[in-house]
């Protein structure tokens, strides 16, 4: 079951274009605003490694490594990202409250946790 709202944004920052995909569809999307929940990927780690957000809030990962990384739900509870190159972003919207674990399928030692509250 897809417990997230399914909004996924991959921002191609280098060319200043961003997209939003929902259930596999590509849509235009606004850029991620200040104050949203950001997870930086740096030195092969998710920072913060554990994040708590409210249902309905957006969560955005940004890759600061020179290696590609992915965001994949361990229990396949949200759509996985494609490989993020340096400075690329991936955004989801938090859905059903609960605790979700994810990892980088390229470097599976990299894991993280999302806690969604009402």
């Amino acid at each position, binding site marked *: 079951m897809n417990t997230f709202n399914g909004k996924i944004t991959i921002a191609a920052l280098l060319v200043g274009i961003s997209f939003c995909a929902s259930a596999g569809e590509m849509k235009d999307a606004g850029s991620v605003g200040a104050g949203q929940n950001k997870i930086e990927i740096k030195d092969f780690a998710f920072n913060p490694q554990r994040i708590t957000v409210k249902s309905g809030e957006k969560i955005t990962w940004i890759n600061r490594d020179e290696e*590609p990384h992915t965001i994949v739900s361990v229990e396949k509870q949200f759509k996985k990202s494609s490989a993020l190159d340096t400075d690329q972003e991936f955004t989801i919207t938090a859905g059903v409250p609960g605790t979700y674990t*994810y990892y980088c399928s390229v470097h599976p030692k990299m894991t993280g946790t999302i806690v969604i509250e009402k």
Partner: protein
Amino acid sequence: MSDYIHHDHGHDGIDRRGFLKCMAWAGTGVLWTIGGGVLTSKTLAEVAKAGSAIPTATDLSFLQISDSHIGFNKAANKDVTETFKIALDRVNAMPTPPSFLIHTGDITQLSKPEEFDTFDQVLKSCRTKDVFYVPGEHDVLNDGGKLYRERYLKSIEAKGSGWYSFSKNGVHFIGLVNVLDLQAGGLGQLGEEQLEWLEDNVKGLGTDTPIVVFAHIPLWTVYPQWGWGTSDSERALGYLKRFGSVTILNGHIHQVLQKVEGNVTFHTAMSTAFPQPEPGTAPSPGPMTVPAEKLRSMLGLTSVQYKQGNMALAVVDSNLS
């Protein structure tokens, strides 16, 4: 010469049959030869300097090339296509061309068709035309390796996600895939189906058959904190334990490491693109930027030679300086 060697001999009373020699030169290129039951290695640069260090009376020689990362353009190496070309120039300059090449994965940086195209185009300059591949995790990023398999396994009867075997001059070669379906928190993995195939594949072979296994991620635990190992490699090695000579060739870590356990020699090759830190010497793995004048000394190739009647392969690492 900059080098470091990891010797980790098992304390099981098994004769290690001679010496273990491992050298890391600038550049990528290692010559492997088997002779007298001992696998040895030398860099191509050393071979070139010595003039005739590579034995010529061999029955089989082949070259390992690894981690080309075509498409990478960051500070660690802004022109990986050029250093790949230099590596191929070294191959073409060998007095006796290798019978074939083995590429141990990470052909590309991002699995993009145009990156594979560039690799294929540059490879055309190589005098040695036969190339056997296994994928790295960078080659299977978004499609599970579909594009990789379409391009590089056309003339191979591969099984599953792309593993296969072939024989040359009495040596049995096995290409394994350990970069797919990786589990959270884990290492590289071969998986049940591939392991069953491996057990069956070697069942009928005599114990005197030299075995060469090649895969991207090391089939020994180099540094699990960085994911440098394969979770189910022990089981695979169990199927190979009865053979008198087993040589394991890997890439992924972009540096030469070697270990001997019983009749099994493990060896990792340099990259043609960029070096990575020695295990545990940096906050994380990944591209390591070194002074420009030093870069080519940390990229290289691996060459391997085998002479019938001798069990071990001679392995030579050489850099691109």
